[in-house]
């Protein structure tokens, strides 16, 4: 059962590595479906990663840490909202500014607080999210095929992995089955229709940007307190941009977002195990080449090689009443 075990190992890493992408991707989905492009996913995640780890290190509680992370991400969201909704600024510039702000600020504060070269101390025990054993995983492990899959792949992740996965159907349900979702989709397509229907465009867009902030906060918290055990400089490593590419690949739909994030996660996962490629495909690959795969795929998607993706029609445009 060596093959199965290798397979499970890779898929297990895929799930873990997809989680931050998926949360960020859904964050972007809420924002962009409401017509606010958000290139600042990266910065919000990074900021949340730092504050989650820092506060968790100080208080010893990962939950308080995550709350701090979400709060910091929300603060950046509010900044983006004020700049691009209230003052009708350029959404790309606002997003880029947030990314720069987060990249500089996190390291600066980390150095000032912990004096460890821009890192936070390593998190232990309740300071990070620990794996959750699903019920009866231990007793089922001897059942052929299903046992190892259940125990090695489905069970044993941190709670945030399950949260991210549950967010997919929840997002779909909110978008397509609730009043809020209808209005959210409408405001990204035709804000003038929402306005003349007597609904506030500004409130809706702020709500969407707020949800985006919360999800980015969770994504950042997962990076530094679930996936890793502490914050290091630039630890998001472009995941915010990859999530944006995944969002385009998914054509702004939650179900496809899951698939495209799993694909990116899979590429990251095999980069961790070059030995497996050598064993099964019997050729040696440079690790650097594997590392670069997700970014190459991002470029290909953004260059539009994967078919036409139609973004929300009013995306990127501040709402101004026509005269």
């Amino acid at each position, binding site marked *: 059962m060596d093959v199965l075990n290798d397979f499970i190992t890779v898929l297990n890493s895929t799930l873990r590595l997809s989680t931050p992408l998926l949360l960020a991707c859904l964050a972007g989905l809420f924002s962009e479906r409401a017509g606010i492009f958000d290139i600042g996913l990266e910065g919000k995640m990074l900021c949340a990663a730092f504050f989650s780890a820092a506060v968790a290190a100080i208080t010893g509680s990962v939950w308080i840490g995550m709350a701090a992370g979400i709060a910091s991400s929300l603060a950046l969201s509010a900044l983006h909202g004020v700049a691009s909704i209230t003052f009708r600024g350029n959404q790309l510039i606002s997003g880029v500014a947030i990314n720069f702000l987060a990249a500089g600020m996190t390291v600066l504060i980390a150095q000032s607080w912990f004096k460890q070269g821009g890192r936070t101390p390593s998190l232990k025990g309740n300071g990070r999210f620990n794996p959750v054993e699903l019920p009866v995983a231990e007793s089922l492990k001897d059942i052929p095929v299903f046992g190892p899959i259940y125990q090695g792949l489905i069970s044993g992740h941190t709670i945030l992995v399950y949260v991210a996965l549950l967010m997919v159907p929840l997002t779909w349900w909110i978008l397509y089955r609730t*009043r809020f979702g209808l*209005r959210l989709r409408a405001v990204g397509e*035709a804000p003038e229709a929402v306005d*003349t*229907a*007597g609904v*506030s465009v500004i409130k809706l867009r702020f709500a969407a940007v707020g949800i985006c902030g919360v999800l980015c906060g969770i994504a950042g918290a997962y990076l530094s307190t679930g996936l890793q055990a502490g914050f290091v400089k630039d630890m998001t490593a472009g995941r915010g941009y990859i999530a944006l590419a995944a969002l385009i690949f998914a054509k702004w739909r939650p179900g496809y977002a899951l698939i495209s994030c799993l694909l990116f996660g899979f590429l990251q996962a095999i980069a961790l195990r070059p030995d497996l490629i050598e064993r099964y495909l019997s050729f040696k690959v440079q690790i650097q080449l594997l590392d670069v795969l997700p970014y190459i795929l991002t470029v290909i998607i953004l260059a539009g090689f994967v078919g036409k993706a139609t973004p929300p*029609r009013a995306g990127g445009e501040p709402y101004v009443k*026509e005269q």
Partner: protein
Amino acid sequence: MTINDQKGRRETVAPAIELVGISKAFGAVQANKDISIRVMPGTIHGIIGENGAGKSTLMSILYGYYKADKGEIFIKGNQTTIPNSEAAIAAGIGMVFQHFKLVQNFTVLENVILGVEDGAMLRPSLTKARKSLTELAKEYELSVDPDAKIEDLSVGHQQRVEILKALYRHANVLILDEPTGVLTPAEANQLFRILQRLRDEGKTILLITHKLREIMDITETVSVMRRGEMVTTVTTSKTSPAELAELMVGREVLLRVDKKPAKPGAKILDVENLRVVDEAGIERLKGVNLHVCAGEILGIAGVAGNGQSELLAALGGYQKATGTVKINNKLIDVGGAFQGQNRRADGLSHVPEDRQHEGLIMEFTAWENLVFGYHHDADIQNGIFMNNAAIRDEAQAKMERFDIRPPDPRLKARNFSGGNQQKIVLAREIERDPEILLVGQPTRGVDIGAIEFIHQQIMTLKDKGKAILLVSVELDEVLSLSDRIAVMFDGSIMGERLANKTNEKELGLLMAGVKTGTN
């Protein structure tokens, strides 16, 4: 106030809507100046005025889309404020905007419930709206597939959805802003039947239009606006189109163009089997044949989007096409795009449909705009530089000849009114003395006074023996200017008629794609 009802009794009824002293400014532009108007319940009340007279602004204030700077609003005699559209809807006011406010990739049902959902979940609202739409469809002849996506519906049906949206919100007062601009004559007639039906049911209709005929046909009362002010309100049956036109413009206007009979000369433009396939692979022109002779105007009628734009673009040299096109018997290459420069050398000038995007560069000055396309001409070069002083002098002269106001060549194109922008384009193209002139929508968004001038210029060019191809969605305009009329439908010419031997009804049928006997 007191009115006479049908049996001659005198009765006191509060106006459905009363606006008192409404003022609204956009920056330095005073769009509405101290406007007062009373609209009686159960009537169709027209508001007429030129473009920029402030009609749409006034109605948008009533619908809460804009906020008035000053003034009072009374609904059924009670003073109220309408800070946003939500308040207008609550007060029983519905509005069908000139540019529809629909979500293109939503279904009809989703558009109808947007903003008036019955709870946090969608399903009960959708079920209720479906039932309600069925009833409304029966009551007012407003049937439309509730599950169709807006982008798949014709413009006429999209307009129905807008009306249904208002009725679903229990509107008692329905405002329609230029509702017939995008409709075929048959669709327009049907719309008017629906409006009359709504009126008979006791609804109040406010109809904004710049078309005198519509006012005469359907309204009971008409208010005339000019330059942001309310000129007067009169009973429609006691006025005439000529009087209304004069009130709108502030001086006497010639409604009819003085058309001398054509003396067609040699064939200047000859088009055979012209085909255009767009980027999406859809055939937009399906083998068009037509010719234009010297000294005549061929008018192309049709509802917007039936291939007229592609025809102009292909002939104008910025849309790849296949087929045979000859100008003065010289074969023209239509296969390569971006050949406007060659076309001008061949004697073809083009006044594009979309003057703001194709005819002008809005951020550039009038004198620059007056020379575009001809800026390589030898007489304005000065070594490797352009002789800007000469161009400006020439521009000044053109602006005076074409009565472009204000006559300042250094103003940006953006700062001129629609009519004056169009005159800039016309001056540039006509003054080059072309053999053939293509004109697209010459008076779209142009006020009556300027329309008269533009029509005269086109007629003068024709009388000088030039060939003119005129494309317009305004059937009146095509009828009054053209000598021959070709009707386009779905990328083909449905038929050709002599202007003095046809009428709106016959052309209307052709515009709707109905083949009739040919002459």
